[in-house]
């Protein structure tokens, strides 16, 4: 067997790693055509108002994403990591959380951040290079974006271990959700987090958005089995959900979070989705993937199916859609303005928050640099 044959053997695996799973192979409550289907393990009672509200989140976060890409193109942002195609996975799971829960995102969870109530301009700050995030994780139950792949899975697990020690496990207890991608499942940290969560029975949900691509590398480079099956080896349940189905993502995440908060330990959720855009605005996916794949996934769009469902069942009228479009325009205009008006930080903030207390060495570096900057002003005057 050559090195190349291993990859091909994996693709031909009957578990359909690289292919498109049949609906029986993942949990789906809303088909790509917008047809509501039932799943025995995931009954979902949901009002028309709630579905409209989910739809609103999907539309608005896609708009924010679209604006951010445009702002990057215009030079207002250094870079942007688009969530295009992953809106349902993020909104479905994000809306399943309680305010007291804690979420640990990667750098692409703009939809989760939206659901947690974080002002999207905070995200623009980060991608503009004005801050490293800078929000207070406690305020929104949303930890800072983590850029090093997979590190946050251990932080989430440790946080969940704290919940156990605080006696906050129980029917109304707290739970943690941590986001990561298919590529991250190869990292040692992620596997260690699985082990820690398993042996401590920590109240944490591992939410893996399998968007099929780790920059240029397809899932076959990371795994020969579907990712959700990995959980069994670590000793906790794994489920695969249609990541483009907001209702299924909501129901599956809600159930896993409830199990965690009641003390039943971790769950791995693999949200099977697709990164419709580039890895980031600096990436060029035409170098490594076929346009045909994108076309297939366009038919499974996470937003169109909700719209079809709402229209077909007369759960939303024309005014609803028109109002949402207007709101979307307002949000777009607001963040464009906020981004363009965002001032550069004061250079002296470089020296802030390095330590809890001032120290002489850093203060002298700061004072010297301030004096150095002043020397230019004197020259200019």
């Amino acid at each position, binding site marked *: 067997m050559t090195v190349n044959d291993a990859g091909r053997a994996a693709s031909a695996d009957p578990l359909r790693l690289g292919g498109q799973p049949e609906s029986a192979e993942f949990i789906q409550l809303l088909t790509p055509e917008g047809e509501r289907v039932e799943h025995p393990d995931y009954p979902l009672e949901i009002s028309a108002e709630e579905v409209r509200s989910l739809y609103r989140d999907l539309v608005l976060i896609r708009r924010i994403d679209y604006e951010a890409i445009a702002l990057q193109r215009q030079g207002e942002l250094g870079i942007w990591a688009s969530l295009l195609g992953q809106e349902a996975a993020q909104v479905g799971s994000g809306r399943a959380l309680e305010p007291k829960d804690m979420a640990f995102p990667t750098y692409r969870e703009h939809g989760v951040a939206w659901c947690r109530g974080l002002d999207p301009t905070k995200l623009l700050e980060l991608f503009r290079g004005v801050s490293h995030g800078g929000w207070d994780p406690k305020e929104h139950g949303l930890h800072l974006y983590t850029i090093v792949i997979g590190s946050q899975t251990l932080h989430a697990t440790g946080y969940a271990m704290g919940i156990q020690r605080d006696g906050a496990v129980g029917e109304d207890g707290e739970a943690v959700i941590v986001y990561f991608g298919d590529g991250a499942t190869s990292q*040692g940290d992620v596997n260690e987090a699985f082990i820690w969560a398993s042996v401590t029975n920590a109240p944490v949900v591992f939410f893996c958005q399998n968007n099929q691509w780790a920059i240029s590398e397809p899932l076959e480079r990371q795994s020969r089995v579907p990712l959700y099956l990995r959980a069994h080896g670590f000793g906790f349940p794994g489920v695969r959900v249609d990541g483009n189905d907001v209702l299924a993502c909501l129901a599956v995440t809600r159930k896993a979070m409830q199990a965690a908060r009641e003390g039943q330990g971790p769950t791995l959720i693999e949200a099977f989705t697709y990164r419709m855009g580039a890895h980031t605005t600096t990436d060029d996916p035409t170098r*490594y993937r076929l346009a045909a794949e994108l076309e297939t996934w366009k038919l499974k769009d996470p937003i169109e199916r909700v719209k079809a469902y709402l229209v077909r069942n007369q759960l939303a009228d024309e005014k609803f859609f028109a109002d949402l479009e207007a709101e979307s325009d307002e949000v777009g205009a607001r963040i464009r303005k906020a981004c363009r008006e965002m001032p550069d930080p004061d250079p002296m903030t470089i020296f802030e928050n390095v330590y809890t207390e001032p120290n002489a060495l*850093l203060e002298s570096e700061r004072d010297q640099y301030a004096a150095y900057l002043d020397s230019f002003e004197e020259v200019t005057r």
Partner: protein
Amino acid sequence: MTKLTLSRALNEGLRKAMERDPKVLIMGEDVGKLGGVFRVTDGLQKDFGEARVVDTPLAESGIVGTAIGLALRGYRPVCEIQFDGFVFPAFDQITSQLAKMRYRSKGNVTLPVVVRIPFGGGIGAVEHHSESPEALFIHTGGLRVVACSDPVDAYAMIQQSIMSDDPVIFFEPKRRYWERAEVDTAGGLAEALPLDKAKVVVGGTDVTVLCYGPMVKTCLAAAAAAGEEGRSLEVIDLRSLSPLDTETIFESVQRTGRCVVAHEAPVTGGLGAEIAARVTEACFYQLEAPVLRVGGFSTPYPPSRLEEHYLPDLDRVLDAVDRTFAY
């Protein structure tokens, strides 16, 4: 002679090394079809196949750890770490295993592994994409640590690093990837400076300015500006950060009597501190002023809108030069 970018020069150097020795492998994230995020390995998988240019799983510890195993088996792996800030998951494999294997085996095991790391700031990136972690590797005996600064050196040094039987941490100046220069890709490496030698890029008489990687261009600009004011700076590109070519450094400082070390990395515990101590010891009676350091602040790398303050520029180098005359 061909005009090449630094990125392309590395690519040509890698190609030469792979043609010369079938044991040379390239491994890393996105090095195959994509050709690496900076295109340093562009086209190599197409020409040398997937067994020699390996898109690895997304795990840096795994990249270096398996490279060690491949080296034990007689291969010469060249690992690409995508960005400086992502080398830390591999830090254990590099410092505890890669660096020490020869020592532990009393010379019976050599590990000719190269770990390529794009380093430094200035590209407007988000966190963990602009760091200069070289001191952490310099501090580890058993590793050769080198940094190229221009296309000519990039082309030669990557080949020399691959030929070295020692493990080499190879730093590439990220913000200089697109700088161009004439590179002779037809000739061999006979004319190239040995890997562990520093290079006097511009001779001078008043101050020795030591630098490497992205700061070489900055310091050359500073030397030109100082020249207009009648000051003669000697700019030395260290190239090998460990081991240091102290012979070239001491000879220069003993002549000029003044020394400034510039790097992007924080000055605290940085290479400049090491050089200052050694120069002070070896050139004490010739020194007219203390060795001064120009570098990053003792803080994490700031958000990119502030990086021009953090990164030493021409003015900060000249400011240090001025200060050496104030003693």
